[in-house]
């Protein structure tokens, strides 16, 4: 943490030391709340759901619905407590169908929470260690999430899409880095090709960046961050299914996706000039 001048006004465009301190406290309490909430939901919601005498299909549906509602509350708290500014959305109507393959940028630890709170019946690929952690083991079972160490990962994801799940993927495989072009792995493209499924691109940005890779949670930015979430029209998979070996098509699709995201990720930065009423092209 950099020391702030003890008195005198903060430089233009930055929050005062006091406001930053408040955001550090809010961030800490946010994590504490999340941990407590996870424990509470695990014990009193996901675990009982697992014991319900209903089929897996229903268990998943109940779990996923409840989780989106809980996360909606949680993100509401973030906004209410002044940790983030109200989020700007565009194209949300394109996120309302079942069985979407949602491919998103990943600037911050918490953007998956936005997506899970908005997407109906969302499925995710999560770290296999969550199947060994006593707090997360019940949730990941009840939610029917996909383990990232599954040997048939691509087929499982394609199967989930065919079964009507919406699948959220961060194709970078890690968080988006600042001041660097986005670099995608080819897993997302391979899943789209295996399932023959269109892709819904969601460009998530956070300005200034918060909770990014390699930073401590208390290293809060100078200004209150704002998330911008732009949902774009589906990208058709059809042109990529024309006779090329899948490994080649995956490369072409990944290249095109990467170019699309890089174009839109750096464009219309909310920290630059925001033009109301204009949707990014």
């Amino acid at each position, binding site marked *: 943490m950099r020391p702030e001048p003890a008195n005198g006004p903060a430089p233009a465009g930055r929050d005062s030391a006091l406001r930053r301190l408040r955001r550090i406290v809010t961030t800490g309490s946010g994590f504490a709340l999340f941990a407590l909430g996870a424990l509470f939901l695990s014990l009193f919601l996901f675990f009982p759901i697992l014991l319900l005498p209903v089929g897996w299909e229903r268990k998943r549906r109940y779990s996923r619905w409840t989780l989106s509602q809980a996360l909606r509350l949680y993100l509401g708290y973030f906004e209410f407590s002044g940790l983030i500014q109200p989020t700007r959305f565009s194209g949300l109507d394109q996120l309302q169908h079942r069985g979407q393959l949602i491919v998103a940028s990943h600037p911050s630890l918490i953007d998956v929470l936005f997506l899970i709170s908005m997407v109906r019946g969302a499925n995710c690929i999560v770290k296999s260690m969550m199947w060994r952690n006593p707090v997360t083991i019940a949730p990941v079972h009840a939610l029917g999430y996909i383990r990232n160490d599954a040997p048939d990962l691509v087929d499982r994801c394609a199967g989930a899409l065919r079964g009507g799940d919406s699948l959220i993927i961060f194709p970078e495989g890690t968080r988006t880095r600042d001041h660097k072009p986005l670099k995608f792995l080819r897993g997302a493209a391979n899943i789209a090709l295996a399932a023959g499924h269109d892709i819904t691109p969601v460009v998530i940005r956070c300005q200034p960046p918060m909770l990014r890779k390699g930073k401590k949670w208390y290293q809060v930015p100078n200004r209150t961050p704002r998330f911008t979430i732009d949902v774009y029209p589906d990208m058709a998979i059809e042109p990529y299914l024309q006779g090329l070996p899948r490994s080649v098509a995956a*490369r072409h699709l990944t290249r095109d996706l990467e170019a699309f995201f890089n174009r839109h990720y750096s464009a219309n930065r909310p920290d630059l000039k925001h033009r109301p009423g204009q949707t990014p092209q």
Partner: protein
Amino acid sequence: MHTKESIYQQLQSILAELFEIPPEDVKLQSDLYDDLDIDSIDAVDMAIKLTELTGRKIQPSDFRDIRSVSDVVDAVYALVQVEAVS
């Protein structure tokens, strides 16, 4: 008969066909993952293709300790030798 040289050439054409890697970029010391940008999904495709070409069953697990192009050539060569002897 498979020699290391012929396996190497076959591998170059496989990498070109499956992954659009120009044959001149494929050197024996090239690292598959860092230099040639091959991922775990590609490794499975490559194993299937090598199986077709050599007529020897190659499991993706045979590639576990493999990093470089020469590792692949050596592993495939060892497999076809074993088959030829037995």
